[in-house]
């Protein structure tokens, strides 16, 4: 049933759809990021598509991708896009689903935000930003959501070590960095 959706999408946006797939019965379309907003709006508004219900948004970091039993050419390399942002959508009326995937290069992980198209993606995109550092252009309120603002780095990226700790506690027993301390003592204070 959903193959029809992929066919219609490819027919409507032949330039925007990079490729499609339906592995494990999950209909998936890879979209160019410049066209994402147009494709998303069309999917929502076209009566035959009517993807009115958003499901989830997340990201995959491919930097460690070395699948077992597949040729080396399929492994991740510097020339391949590092991130894939996935949007899963559902239609209440037609009961079909589709997943949009947008591939992003490592040096420029940004894409247009879909928070205005489906309000549910507001928080989901904040989560993706929090965990993967993907910048969503046009997002109304792109802040960290699970972690605190002082957190450095993006924990779900594959190059963030699992053992790394960043507790948000005040430690008076540690030596103070004189450059960062707001009221660094000056020698003259001791006099």
């Amino acid at each position, binding site marked *: 049933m959903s193959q029809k959706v992929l066919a219609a999408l490819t027919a409507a946006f032949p330039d925007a759809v990079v490729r499609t797939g339906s592995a*494990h019965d999950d209909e998936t379309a890879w979209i160019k990021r410049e066209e994402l907003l147009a494709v998303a709006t069309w999917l929502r508004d076209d009566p035959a598509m009517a993807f*009115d219900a958003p499901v*989830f948004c*997340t990201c995959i970091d491919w930097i*460690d991708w070395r699948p077992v039993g597949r040729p080396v050419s399929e492994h991740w390399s510097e020339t391949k896009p590092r991130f894939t942002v996935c949007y899963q959508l559902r239609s209440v009326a037609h009961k079909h689903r589709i997943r949009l995937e947008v591939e992003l290069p490592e040096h420029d992980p940004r894409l247009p935000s879909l928070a205005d198209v489906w309000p549910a993606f507001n928080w989901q995109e904040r989560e993706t930003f929090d*965990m993967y550092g993907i910048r969503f252009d046009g997002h109304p309120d792109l802040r960290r*959501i699970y972690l605190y603002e002082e957190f450095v780095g993006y924990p779900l990226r594959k190059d963030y070590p*699992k053992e790394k700790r960043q507790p948000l506690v005040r430690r008076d027993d540690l030596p103070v960095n004189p450059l960062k301390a707001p009221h660094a003592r000056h020698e003259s204070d001791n006099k």
Partner: protein
Amino acid sequence: MADAQSLKQLVLGRKDVQDMSDEESELPPELMTVNMGPSHPAMHGTVRIVLTVDGEKIVKSDIQPGYLHRCFEKESEYATYTQVFPYTDRLNYVSPMINNVGWAMAVEKLLGLTGKLPRRAEYIRVIVSEMSRMTDHLTCIGASAMELGAFTPFLYFLKAREWLYELLEKISGARLTHSYARVGGVVKDLPLDFEADLTLCLDKIDPVIVDVEKMLLSNKIFYDRVVGIGAMSREDAIKTGCVGPIARAAGVDYDVRRDFPYSVYPELEFDVPLGTTGDCYDRYLVRLEELRQCARILRQCMRQIPEGAFVVDDPRVAMPPKKDAYNTIESMIRHFKHIVDGIRVPPGEAYAFLEGGNGELGFFVVADGTGRPYKAYCRSPSFVHLSTASQLIHDHYIADVVPIFGMINMIGGECDK
């Protein structure tokens, strides 16, 4: 007299209202910022709400989850597929069985095992899921009623929940963190006499539901606190991604069990209750009716459950029986590989979803051929529902935050992952 007045002023720290001029006695017109949470007795989980209030009316709110973030996804990437089950227990800790089954379904989808499980395993999964759904709804209604001052329904429902927990403990060995489902089935068969136990339990729960319904349905205090509070239109519910009882209370006719049937749900008969107004009262009614439907499904399951295996007969995923593991070298090696390397899942990505206690719960898994997931994402309904709460409490009073949050049933573990 003058002395008395100045003494009064000294005690009060300000002039008495009677002595003030009209200008002085007006309340300050500025907006005030109030912190609610993160650890607040009326919050189901740890969540912080920064409220901007005009008097007692909420004009703006910023909801900040994350106080219970335990890195489910990062930890899962370093665990074998079987080792993830205990982590899923701790997502929605009120209905852990459904999370277990959801994770198992996602891995099975990648393995191509969907629909190839023994029928007994599928029935067992449905039974434990529906029992978990009951515990979820019992907790939600009970706790919400308690927060509005009705303590008795809470005690009644928690007593009923404890009967279910006792049964679940009999099945899995743990009261709360069951880790019962496995890829390809469940870890062990149902205990002896389970059918009689469950029937007895359901027969005991039915009158409790009636009792609580009587207590709340015609209760003016409860009624006044929930009717028209936190209402959501059908369109809003759809586009904000709401699912489960919250969406159904708003009139969205969507239930994964019926619309995208999985497991043996097509063979079972049940109704999907719908609300009309989408306010807290309808959410309560929907959950109450779903309790009855769960009991109905459970009774059908007990009649229809076939004999047979409880785990798929596939050496890739099933652990060898203990007897073989101790006595034959092949099974010993298989057991060892299973524990150390985990289940080898072919490379690919899949999203599997099912009806959780709060709605569509899904797992998006990317596999790279090793025994550990390359990526494991949990689509938690609580997180999506909490994102709408800011809209729901807008223009309500501070006291209304309590029933709205109670009926959203935000589970901290699931929301913050």
